[in-house]
């Protein structure tokens, strides 16, 4: 049962929020949808979830249009919205019970699933607390738990780690991995955190301004920059003069300056180290470190759009 998105387009007045997006998700795989805020990820997800109709294009489940028949997909779909879609006045148990009952789950089955889900999200000891008294991370975990109750075959997660502490973030990422490995749940994971997508997704779509600008496995995407190395240098102090010299250097690209740290890409064929040392000496600034890195998804995005992912 593959989900296939064909030329999906959404226009809001004159703005193309999503422009002819094509993608697919196979059973049991994790697909990452990476892009900066406003790239069109959430709108794509909303159409994919059958929550808003597309202006053009279609989504197919087993070659059947879900625009025409959304029920087939809704039965096997769990959605974790970016917002905490829970009732703060209810306890975790009451929330799970409510959402399970609207899915028409039999009482006994629902009770069993509640136990399993509470264990999966690590809230079994806090299940009788009102959600409004939970920490941000606990709310996020319950937000995921609600989507898992009816054992969906496909799980769409829209920025599930926004605004939480690193510990909770790790817990969520591990939960997602475990769901995929143990229950073969196919997951569409959207984020603007490149490292999260890189960590859990096997295939990745990169979106910008409503369009898919790159897709494939991590290695395939990174191979866009295969002829180049990313070099990260640290300076002893900030130097505008040195940065200006680097910017004028024709062999460098994707120059990114963060105080005393500077990264840039350079052709693999070129030994740039002697040149770099000369330039730093001429500018009167000493290099503290020099590191050659494999290109990251961030570098690919920078290369493709000229902008950083989190700008």
């Amino acid at each position, binding site marked *: 049962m593959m989900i296939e998105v064909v030329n999906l387009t959404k226009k809001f007045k004159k703005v193309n929020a999503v422009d002819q997006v094509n993608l697919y998700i196979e059973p049991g795989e994790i697909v990452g949808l990476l892009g900066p805020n406003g790239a069109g990820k959430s709108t794509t997800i909303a159409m994919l*979830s*059958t*929550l808003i109709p597309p202006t053009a294009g279609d989504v197919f489940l087993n070659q059947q249009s879900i625009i025409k028949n*959304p*029920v087939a997909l809704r*039965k096997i779909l769990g959605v974790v919205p*970016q917002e905490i879609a829970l*009732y703060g006045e209810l306890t975790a148990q009451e929330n799970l019970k*409510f959402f399970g009952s609207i899915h028409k789950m039999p009482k006994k089955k629902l009770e069993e699933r509640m136990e399993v889900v509470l264990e999966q999200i690590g809230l079994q000891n806090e299940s009788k607390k009102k959600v409004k008294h939970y920490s941000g991370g606990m709310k996020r975990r319950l937000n995921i738990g609600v989507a898992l109750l009816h054992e969906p075959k496909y799980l769409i997660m829209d920025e599930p780690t926004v605004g939480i502490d690193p510990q909770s973030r790790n817990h969520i990422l591990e939960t997602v991995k475990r769901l995929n490995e143990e229950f073969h749940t196919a997951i569409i994971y959207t984020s603007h955190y490149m490292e999260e997508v890189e960590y859990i997704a096997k295939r990745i779509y990169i979106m910008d301004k409503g369009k898919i600008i790159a897709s494939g496995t991590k290695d395939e995407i990174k191979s866009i920059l295969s002829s180049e190395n990313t070099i990260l240098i640290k300076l002893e102090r900030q130097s505008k003069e040195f940065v200006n010299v680097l910017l004028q250097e024709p062999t460098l690209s994707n120059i990114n300056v963060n105080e005393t740290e500077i990264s840039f890409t350079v052709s693999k064929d070129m030994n740039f180290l002697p040149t770099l040392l000369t330039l730093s000496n001429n500018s009167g600034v000493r290099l503290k470190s020099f590191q050659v890195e494999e290109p990251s998804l961030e570098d690919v995005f920078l290369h493709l759009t000229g902008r950083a992912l989190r700008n």
Partner: protein
Amino acid sequence: MFLSLIRKQITILFRSPTELLILLFMPIVLITILSFALGALWEGENEVSKVELAIVQQDDEMQQVDQFLLEAKDFINRTSDMEKYLQHMLPISILVEQMETNEEMKQFIHVTKLDPEKVEDAKESGEYAAILEVPKNFTYDFLSSIYLQGEKPTFNVYLNESEKITSTIVQSILDYYQQQYSLASSLAQSGVPTNIDSLPKMEITSDIRTIDSQQEITSSTYYTFSMTVMFILYIASTLASQAFVEKYFHIFDRVLLARIHPLTYLFSIMTATIIIAMVQVGILFTFAYFIFNISFAQWESFLIITLLLSIVVGGLAALLSSVNYRTNSGEASNVFSNAFVSVFALVGGSYFNISSLSPWLAELGMWTPNGAALNGYLKIYQNASMVEIMPNIIHLSILAILFIVLAVVLFPKRGGIV
């Protein structure tokens, strides 16, 4: 599944102390304060103030009778019986006697006999609702008109225009008196024996009949009803706000993904509102029963009005939710609770009985949910029949249908895809 939606709405509301404070505590406090604070004023309003009537008698009745008998001796047979009869027919004496001695009349009219020289001052002072001036020779002319074919005399009545209600009462009484007296004197003139008992007896019969059969409306009764029907409106905005929060935080998306039709969700808001509204009315009336001893003899009528009012409020909650969803903001419920409830309360008579100001306002008030229900409760409390509360039932039914239809039409059939 539908029950889960309703149970969830009710649970959330009953776990919100702020909402409970507004929906239950506030009306109880206001009913208590208004009942005690305005009790004296309210009872004062119900008293009918006495009509002040002044009588200025320019003639001397006995002297006029004697004069008549003396001058008419050539035309009529003067017997002792006739003299006695004429003395019983003295028109002004009879009028004054009846107003002063009749127990029912005494409740409404206070008669003052004025000296003729004070009549102008009395007219200017406006102290009296009416001044009855009996001209000189009135009794003589009156007897002449009966026995000697003379012209009918008239007395002068000055009505105080600033006291419209009381002066109208006086005018009605005098009109009635004159009609009856004219009839009696005509019969006497025609030779029909006229018994003193057939002379007019002024009674206010119609009002007394209705007053006896009705329960008195006190301030506590009025404000129990008026505050209940006002605060029930806040349930609509509260539930509509809750519904918007569900949209804002994408809980509604989860409901749709659970394959629940948007209209099922809308009707769950409406049903939850109806249940909460009925519970609120139940609590407030139970309070009023134990504290103010307010109860209804006709429980069926009370339940019908309460159920219809609750359905109207349910429809309002659904309509406000629809507007909130359509405009993607919670403004509709805010504007309703901050402005519309106050306007409805004023027009519907929740603050004071506005319908007494004009018939137009009374009719307008009947087109507000609280106004129609308040009027219905007051009627039921005064033992009105089902026919008498039918206009209230019709108004509430029309409002309920209107709100529900608008809510269904306006609610986005979203999910795009349903």
